[in-house]
Each structure stands twice: as structure tokens, then as C-alpha cells.
């Protein structure tokens, strides 16, 4: 094969990696690449803001498990993508972000649309690269995809100077990527697996604490097997929802700041805590010394830095969650003299206690005549979609209500910005998800505040025939902050009142979408049904109880047992 230019080589690399959709926004530094993309067969989705491109690639990655790709121009194009990159980093989502850069000769000269994006994104990427020599272009891209998708996944940025991309090169043959300095540990240490299993079998009050790692490693079946064969109750982090069926009797729902009463009580009382692909985030633990104070802690994580970072772990297992859980299930199957029914019987009093907690304080809310309670909207969405839609969210109260009241039974159905808490994530992420699975129902649950952060992506959704449904829980407030102000700031609503909010129905129409509104509880079901029956982009605007709060709530810095209840 003769020489090809850098753009052609990049396209070939993308094809090798199985990329069929990228999300991008053009500019001077990447115009060659866009030109080459046009006839490549790769779908190039033109977003309306670069943050949207990265979130869309992220949403695509979360629902498929594949690497999402965004292509941005240099300078402002690249910096606009940074929030998206940090969002993916905090939630360990595999994406590759390609950024244009000024020609190598101009780097460092404060050239037009020049920014040191490699320097800027160093702390919020898993790794990043500036390709200065065209011969490194293809190996670097291959390495970038390898790093993004293996180990603890994460975003990788590749900065591409314009002259490098224009250089004629030989396209090197594809070989498996081998990196001397990067070899994640997938297989667990069998001695640790045995120790963990014996500790679990000795437990009277075990709890499984499940995080996003279970979803990232596709370990939901292995986890479900472990929980069910020994009757271990399961609680999930925000990122772990869907990792275990939400309707299973063993599911205690989410734990932490807005977790269920049951989950937080169970963690506080358990004698063995099995953390799987979770990282003891402060929103989960509350006051750290009061978190699982009576428990021996087993922690499975592929990233050694997560282990004993916040909470001292008794039995660390560095491994891929799927491999570790498989090894545990195999160990249990092969264990001599193990009677699983006996273990289940031993757990009966514990499960009875757990059920008592749920009976005492179920996840609930008070209805109020015709006033629309946001929780009711989520329950309706859950009911009318059979709990099986892909749900994205923005960040705030609506996100927590969704986590609490939508029953996720499958992984990769709940797409939310957990770690960074990025408002404006939900709509572009929904577009990414819908691009990946055009036949699936995708709903962005939003607040009136956060939907406006990336509202411009309605045009992207419309342009690409991407009929996502947007459910806005509209209270004319930045509700989550307002709730804190109500509880801890003497009801001084500083900067949280949205005195002007657009008419979302008219706004939808302006974008060629369908706008629906419900102002009474009795209209909610009809509006959702109509939206689901519409083969178009839809905004549902629900006027909700204005000062409704998210409960239970653990005030920041308190023990998770110190919950404020409804």
C-alpha cells in the first residue's frame, strides 16, 4: 500500500477500532479530518456545542460499553470539551477525544486558537497525548483506544497538530497493543478470593455494596448469582443502579446521602461489607468513621488506588469485578461441606430486620391532591416504560428522584453523571445513547435549571432524527441547592430562583419538536403516554410541587444513620 495522509490514517484507525459514529464540531485545525470523514462511512454527528459532543460520546459509551469518540477543534473547541472529559473521568467511562492543534511550528507561540489542551486535561484524563511526529500517529491512536477501554476505563485525549495530520505516512500493520508500563490486573489473587468467601460464609449480617465497576465490567449476572445463592441483601451506588435488579426482594436500593433508610441502616449494622467496583465516595459514606463501623470490609476493584483510599479495607482484591465474582462463585460451588441452604437460613433473621426497616420507612412521598409530585412522575415513567427505558438525567433533585423511584432492572439503562455531577449532561448523553440504539426508548429526566445548560442540543437531536423524550420536572428553582438553603441556610434562596424560565412547550416547537405540559397530577399519565406514542423529539414540561425535597437526606458530614426523613 502506498502512503496516505494523516487524516486518512486516523479514519482507518477509527475503522479498525469499530467506530461507526463520532460526535464533533469542526474548526480550522480539524477541517482536513472533517473533509476525510465525509466519505468514510463513519457517521459524523454535528453537535451545537463541544461539551455536547463529549457528553454524547460518553452516553454512547455508557450504553454500549464501547469506546465513544468525539472530535473537536483546537483552542475553544478543546476547552469547551473539558467538562465532558472530566465527567467521563470521574465515572470511568471509556472515550477517546481527538482535538485539533495548531501546526507544530506554531505550538507555544500563542497562535490563533492555540491552547495547551494536553496540559489542561492532564488531571482529568486517564492519559493524553500530543502527536508531534507523524510516524507516531497510528501507534498513538491505537494505544489511546487500548488505554481508554482496558483496566479502569477512562477518557483519553489525543491532540493532533494540523501539519502532522497533513503528513503522508505509511500505515503500519495492526498488532496487539503491548505497553510495558501499563498492564492492569484482571485476575484476582486466589488466596484473597478464598479469604473473602470464608469471611462471607462466616457472616451473620452481610451486605453487598455495588458500584459502577459492576456495570463497566458487565458483571451484573455474576453479582446477582452471588447475592441470590447466599441471600445477601444488595445496595447500589448511583453508578451501580441496574447492576442488580431493582425489583429483586434482595435489593435495598441506593445508599448514601439520598439512599434508602434500609440501605443506610443495613450498612451501619452489617458485619461483613462486600464492596464491588465501588469507591467509598463521600456521598456514599457520610461521616467516614461511622460508615459500616462493625463490618469487616472486602473490596473488589481493578484500580488499586481505590482500595483503602477512604476506608481501611480488610480483604482487598485487585481484579476486574467480573473475574473476581466468577472466581468467588466457582469457589463456593467447589467448596466441600458447604450447604448454601444453611447459609440462607442463617441470614433469615438479618433479612427480616432489613424488611422491617423497609416497612418502617419505605421510599415514599406524600401526595397532595392535584399538585404534581415529582416522585409520582418518575413512578409513572417507570410504570409506563416497564422499567426498561434508557434513562439519562441531568444533575440535581430530579436525578435523585429518578435514582430513588425508577426501578432499574438491567445495567446500562441509567445514564447519569455521578462523580462530577455535571448539569447539562443528560440531553447530549441521551442523544449519544439513541444514536447507539435507535430502536430503544431514551428519556432524559431533567430539571428546568439543568436542561438549559445544553438545551442547544435539541437541534442536534432534530437534525439526526433522534427522537429522545425529555421530561422536565419544573419547579422554577435550582431545586437541590434550594433544598440545602431551606434546611441549612434559613430559607435564604440566594441565586436559586429561576425568575425567568422559557416556555418549554413553545421552545420545543421552535426546534421542530413536540411540547407537552402537565400542571395537574391527573394529566401526568396522559402526557407521558402521548410522548411515548409520538415518533418525534418531545419535551414534557411537568409543573411540580415547587418546594418538594429529596428525602431521605443525610446532611453533609453526618453519619449515614442520621437521616432526615420525609
Amino acid at each position, binding site marked *: 500500500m502506498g502512503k496516505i495522509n494523516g487524516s486518512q490514517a486516523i479514519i482507518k484507525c477509527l475503522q479498525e477500532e469499530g467506530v461507526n459514529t463520532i460526535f464533533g464540531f469542526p474548526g480550522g485545525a480539524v477541517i482536513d479530518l472533517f473533509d476525510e470523514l465525509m466519505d468514510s462511512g463513519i457517521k459524523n454527528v454535528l453537535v451545537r456545542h463541544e461539551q455536547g459532543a463529549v457528553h454524547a460520546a460518553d452516553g454512547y459509551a455508557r450504553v454500549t460499553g464501547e469506546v465513544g469518540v468525539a472530535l473537536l477543534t483546537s483552542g475553544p473547541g478543546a476547552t469547551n470539551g473539558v467538562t465532558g472529559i472530566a465527567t467521563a473521568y470521574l465515572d470511568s467511562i471509556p472515550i477517546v477525544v481527538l482535538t485539533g492543534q495548531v501546526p507544530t511550528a506554531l505550538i507555544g507561540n500563542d497562535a490563533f486558537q492555540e491552547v495547551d489542551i494536553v*496540559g489542561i486535561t*492532564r488531571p482529568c484524563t486517564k*492519559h493524553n497525548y500530543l502527536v508531534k511526529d507523524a510516524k507516531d500517529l497510528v501507534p498513538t491512536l491505537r494505544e489511546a483506544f487500548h488505554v481508554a477501554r482496558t483496566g479502569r476505563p477512562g477518557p483519553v485525549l489525543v491532540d493532533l497538530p494540523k501539519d502532522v495530520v497533513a503528513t503522508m505516512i505509511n500505515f503500519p500493520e495492526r498488532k496487539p497493543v503491548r505497553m510495558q508500563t501499563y498492564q492492569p490486573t484482571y485476575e484476582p489473587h486466589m488466596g484473597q478470593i478464598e479469604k473473602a468467601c470464608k469471611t462471607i460464609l462466616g457472616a451473620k449480617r452481610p451486605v453487598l455494596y455495588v458500584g459502577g465497576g459492576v456495570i463497566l465490567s458487565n458483571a451484573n449476572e455474576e453479582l446477582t448469582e452471588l447475592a441470590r445463592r447466599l441471600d445477601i441483601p444488595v445496595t447500589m451506588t448511583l453508578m451501580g443502579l441496574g447492576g442488580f435488579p431493582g425489583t429483586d426482594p434482595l435489593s435495598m436500593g441506593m445508599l448514601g446521602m439520598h439512599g434508602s433508610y434500609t440501605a443506610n441502616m443495613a450498612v451501619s449494622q452489617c458485619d461483613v461489607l462486600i464492596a464491588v467496583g465501588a469507591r467509598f465516595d463521600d456521598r456514599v459514606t457520610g461521616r467516614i468513621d461511622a460508615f459500616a463501623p462493625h463490618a469487616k470490609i472486602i473490596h473488589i476493584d481493578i484500580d488499586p488506588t481505590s482500595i483503602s483510599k477512604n476506608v481501611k479495607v480488610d480483604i482487598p482484591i485487585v481484579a476486574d469485578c467480573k473475574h473476581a465474582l466468577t472466581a468467588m462463585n466457582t469457589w463456593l460451588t467447589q467448596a466441600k461441606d458447604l450447604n448454601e441452604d444453611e447459609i440462607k437460613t442463617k441470614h433469615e433473621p438479618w433479612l427480616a430486620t432489613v424488611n422491617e426497616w423497609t416497612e418502617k420507612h419505605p421510599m415514599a412521598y406524600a401526595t397532595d391532591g392535584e399538585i404534581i409530585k415529582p416522585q409520582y412522575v418518575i413512578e409513572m415513567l417507570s410504570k409506563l416504560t416497564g422499567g426498561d427505558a434508557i434513562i439519562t438525567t441531568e444533575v440535581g433533585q430530579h436525578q435523585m428522584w429518578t435514582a430513588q423511584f425508577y426501578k432499574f432492572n438491567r445495567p446500562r439503562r441509567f445514564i447519569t453523571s455521578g462523580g462530577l455531577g455535571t448539569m447539562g449532561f443528560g440531553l447530549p448523553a441521551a442523544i449519544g445513547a439513541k444514536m447507539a440504539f435507535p430502536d430503544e426508548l431514551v428519556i432524559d429526566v431533567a430539571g428546568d435549571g439543568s436542561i438549559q445548560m445544553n438545551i442547544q442540543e435539541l437541534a442536534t437531536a432534530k437534525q439526526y432524527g433522534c427522537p429522545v423524550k425529555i421530561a422536565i420536572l419544573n419547579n422554577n428553582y435550582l431545586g437541590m441547592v434550594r433544598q440545602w438553603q431551606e434546611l441549612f441556610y434559613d430559607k435564604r434562596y440566594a441565586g436559586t430562583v429561576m425568575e425567568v424560565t422559557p416556555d418549554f412547550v413553545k421552545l420545543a416547537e421552535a426546534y421542530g419538536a413536540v411540547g407537552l405540559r402537565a400542571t395537574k397530577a391527573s394529566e401526568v399519565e396522559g402526557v407521558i403516554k402521548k410522548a411515548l406514542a409520538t415518533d418525534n423529539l418531545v419535551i414534557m414540561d411537568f409543573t411540580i410541587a415547587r418546594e418538594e425535597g429529596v428525602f431521605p437526606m443525610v446532611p453533609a458530614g453526618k453519619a449515614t444513620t442520621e437521616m432526615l426523613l420525609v
Partner: protein
Amino acid sequence: MKHTLSVLLQNKPGVLSRVTGLFSGRGFNIESLSVAETLDASVSSLTLVTSGNDAIVEQITKQLHKLIDVIKVTDVSEGEFVEREMVLIRVKAESNTRAEVLRVIDIFRGKVVDVSPKSYTVEVTGSTTKIKAIIDILKPIGIKEIVRTGTIAMARASKS
């Protein structure tokens, strides 16, 4: 507690800022840092002195190891190790103190590497404690300028 870490890393642009960015971003201390290439020009060796309790140092070691360009991280202070630092001191040396300065330098097995009518520039090598000692002794005489390399360290070779 003080820990001396020896880190091997790939000699690529920006690697040092990955390391220092990690420390500043996560609030870890750097007391000294010294870096240069090894026999293999594609590999750099970095010695870093930091402090913190066991949990913090464990986190530092793990986080360093997590950086893609890092090849190996060793906490040499966990076992027997040799550490050295070099310092250049420009010390006031006027007629009344010239002889005394030379005596001090001799005691510390230092070398005079530059001479002017009013000062000596001295090179001294040793452990951090020794460097601190000579600085303490020369301070009252008058130190005009001082430059230190930061510690470099190596684990002691196995005796068997």
C-alpha cells in the same frame, strides 16, 4: 514520616508535570525532587522525598504507579538505602573568616569550586543531615547564595 521514593519513568515530554500535577492535585507533599535520565536514555530516574502517614504514602505510591508513563515505584526508605545530596554554597570569606571557612569545608570534605576576593563557592555532598549541618555552621559566617540538588537515593545492594 519522611519517605524517599525512587521512581523510574519513561523519558517523554510532560512526564514530570504528570508527577508534580499528581502531587499538587491530590494535596501530597514534595520536599525534594530530582530527576535525570538513566543508562537507557528512554528511561528517567526520579527521586522524590515526601512525608505523610502510612496510608498517605501508600496512596502516593499507588497513584504514582497508576500514571501510564511510570515504570516502577520503590519506597527505598522502607529498607536500607543510601541517600546523597549536593549543595553549592557561596559563603562570605573575607580576610578575618577565610581560614575558618576553609577549615569547615575540610571537616565536611567539601571542595572550593570558585573563589572571589570576598567569597568562596563550596561544593559539599552528603546525606540531608550532613548538608543541614554545614549550612548551620556556615550561616553565622554569612551565606550569600545556596543551591541544592535535592536528594537522590538508592536501595542498598543485597548482602548475600
